């Protein structure tokens, strides 16, 4: 059931695409093998047949389901089908909280399921009659206070992270009371969602930072540098993104940054992105970090795909920005910008 392969096959229209480096998963799924759900169905059937004679078989059904989920969760985490790669310190903090909650809830889940299954396996009480017990104050008190304590702990432990992400503390990524004057950002851009793409507009680094970035977000300047579906920054940059939309609600989702923010029609939402890690390898190849839309925005909602490139340093980023600027101010057709491939080259494919 568990494969050792390091690639996962995905069938797309142009035939089967091999994704190199994809983590191994519970099973290798091929076109003809739809047997696993059938096998699980078979197990349920067997449990039912056995239960016709031994009613405790129902405990096995609950136990089997519990085991399936546990196996699934552990194997997912082990094989990398889990939280996406983390791209910032805040993302690490979010992951820490996630795993804390995961651990606490798992304990509770195993506890309750354990009690349930254990109860099912118990022999009938003596004489076939259970005691007529209506409750127990002490027990009620225990299982009121213990969860309350844990939940309050969860509520408190997350507050600093939330404040860092969205609160009033300096550098919060979505300051509730945004102060243009004290903006710590070193890169400013607007991201405008529309059906169905992201239009990026970078503030030109040659120009002084605008006095009021919120105003700049609504009034383009001639020096701005434009891009579609591509968010570029450099490692260590604090990126101020002004999120806008022209038509419906979109949600700007960067999985690697654990970042998600709706764009509201009629509003400019300032958000700060900490870019602590780069997705450019030492050899210059790029790990793909994608942008997705997380709020239904019409039929082609799924098409709002973009990519994030966090360059290794500011110079690399400026190279990209200057290239972008140069191609945007072309006064004559440059041969390099849009090469028409040579026929020989095309035929070799």
């Amino acid at each position, binding site marked *: 059931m568990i494969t050792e392969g390091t690639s996962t096959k995905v069938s797309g*229209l142009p035939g089967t695409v091999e994704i190199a480096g994809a983590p191994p998963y519970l099973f290798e799924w091929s076109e003809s093998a*739809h047997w696993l759900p059938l096998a699980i169905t078979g197990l349920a059937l067997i449990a039912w047949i056995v239960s016709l004679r031994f009613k405790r078989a129902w405990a096995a059904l609950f136990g089997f389901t519990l085991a399936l989920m546990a196996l699934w969760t552990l194997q997912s985490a082990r094989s990398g089908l889990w939280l996406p790669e983390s791209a910032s310190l805040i993302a690490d903090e979010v992951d820490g909280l996630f795993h804390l909650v995961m651990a606490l809830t798992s304990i509770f889940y195993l506890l309750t399921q354990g009690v349930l299954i254990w109860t099912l396996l118990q022999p009938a009480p003596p004489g076939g009659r259970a005691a007529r017990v209506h409750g127990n104050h002490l027990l009620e008190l225990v299982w009121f206070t213990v969860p309350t304590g844990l939940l309050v702990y969860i509520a408190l432990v997350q507050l600093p992270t939330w404040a860092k992400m969205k609160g009033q503390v300096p550098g919060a990524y979505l300051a509730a009371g945004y102060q243009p004057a004290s903006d710590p950002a070193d890169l400013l851009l607007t991201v405008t969602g529309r059906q169905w793409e992201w239009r990026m507009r970078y503030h030109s680094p040659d120009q002084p930072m605008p006095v009021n970035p919120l105003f700049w977000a609504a009034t383009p300047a001639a020096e701005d540098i434009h891009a579609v579906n591509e968010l570029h920054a450099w490692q260590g940059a604090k990126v101020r993104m002004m999120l806008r939309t022209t038509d419906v609600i979109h949600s700007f989702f960067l999985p690697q940054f654990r970042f998600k923010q709706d764009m509201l029609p009629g509003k400019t939402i300032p958000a700060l992105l900490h870019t602590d890690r780069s997705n450019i390898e030492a050899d210059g190849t790029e790990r793909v970090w994608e942008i997705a839309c997380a709020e239904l925005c019409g039929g082609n909602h799924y098409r709002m795909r973009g990519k994030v490139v966090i360059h290794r340093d500011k110079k690399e980023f400026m190279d990209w920005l200057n290239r972008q600027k140069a191609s945007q101010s072309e006064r004559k057709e440059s041969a390099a910008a849009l090469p028409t491939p040579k026929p020989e080259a095309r035929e070799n494919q």
Partner: protein
Amino acid sequence: MPSMIRNSTKAADSLRGCLVAGLLCLGCMALAGCGVTEIPDSVVYPLRSNALVFLEKAPATAPPGFPPPGKPEMSLDWLAEQQVPLFKPSDLDAKPWGPVWREELNSVLVRHFGSPGKPRVGAADQPALATLAAELFLSPAELERGSHQYRRSCLHCHGVAGEGAGATSAWLNPLPRDFRQGEYKFISTAEHKLKSGFQPLKARPRRADLLRTLHHGLEGTSMPSFALLAEEDIQALASYTLHLAIRGELEYWGLLYALKEDAETLRAIEKNPEKEAQVRAQRLISGALEWEDPEADVEEFVAREKGPLLTAGLERLLERLLREYATADKNAMVPLANPYPADQPVPQTSIANGLKIFQVQCVNCHAGYGRQSALRFDNWGGVVRPANLTIPVYKGGRRPVDLYYRVARGIPPCGMPKANLQDGDPAHQVWDLVHFLMALPYPESLPETIRRQIHGGAKQ
């Protein structure tokens, strides 16, 4: 203890259960087996059924307002109200030779273009066409890749045959392009010059123009950027789009020549009323021949031709179209050098001169700098709005050279003429206009007096 809760051990019960589960499994397998990635052979390109629009001279303006969402065809009714003739392919049925004509047209299209599952350009037994197709990267393998990608990325707007009427299309404005007329808005080639004749003079896009649109999308329309697809897929999409455009245009002319009622054709038919089909096919042939050789002798060609006349004509036309596309790069417009240095800010005088040219050349359509543009019909029978130039949204690209192309060659399919610059240095004039257009949306870039005039007094 209640009697109903008993654990029955009857074998019959378990047997029944197995039977039910077996049926479940069968049903599931039947459904799971439906994953077939191939496009079945039964899928063919539909022959055009909607009305053909042929605007020799577009009506000046359209009624205010676009057709409401879901009713794009309403603009055709508006055209009909303005006495513009529309050619309905169904009218062919009324003519005695119509069904034969249609069948012949269809067989030519199938032979030379295949089906969505197996697209090609040029039948294998015609090496001349195959060579041209190869030059345009229209090999069957490339087209098949393009067809698959098209089905995934484009079809829901542009439709199976590139008719611009996919499931999503009716709710978009501007409408997705109908490729089947072989007309393009945002390209960089000059128009052909023909001495005479009935053929409209169409500019063909360079491959680079198509790739630019695929890479950057058309800002301000619903055409998104496809830059994140694999480069091979983008190339294949450009090829497949050409395939659809050429197929569609051949179909367009094949139908239009059967239906069009221009004076010369009517005269020829009057002379020989019982041979209407032949007369119309000959008109098509003369159109096809004219491009390469204006003096070509149609009579001689017809005399030489042994097979069906329409087929021969369409194949000549196909060759002509392929040649036009293949030579598009040669027809590329070379922008005049910008007389102002690139490393210095644009002088305010240039912008002021641009405004003067704008007020003569452009203001008729782009009223109030495009804020109050009146709507117009385009060559597809749709309604377009001359751009609002006070907001920095440029459908055809925001590079200065893109604006240069728009100004210097116009956008003929939607009635935008090229700027008519007569006196003075043309390089200065065109670039002045471009500089003005580039500064127009940004109040800070405009000279004080002009800013007042356009954006009101307040300086932000």
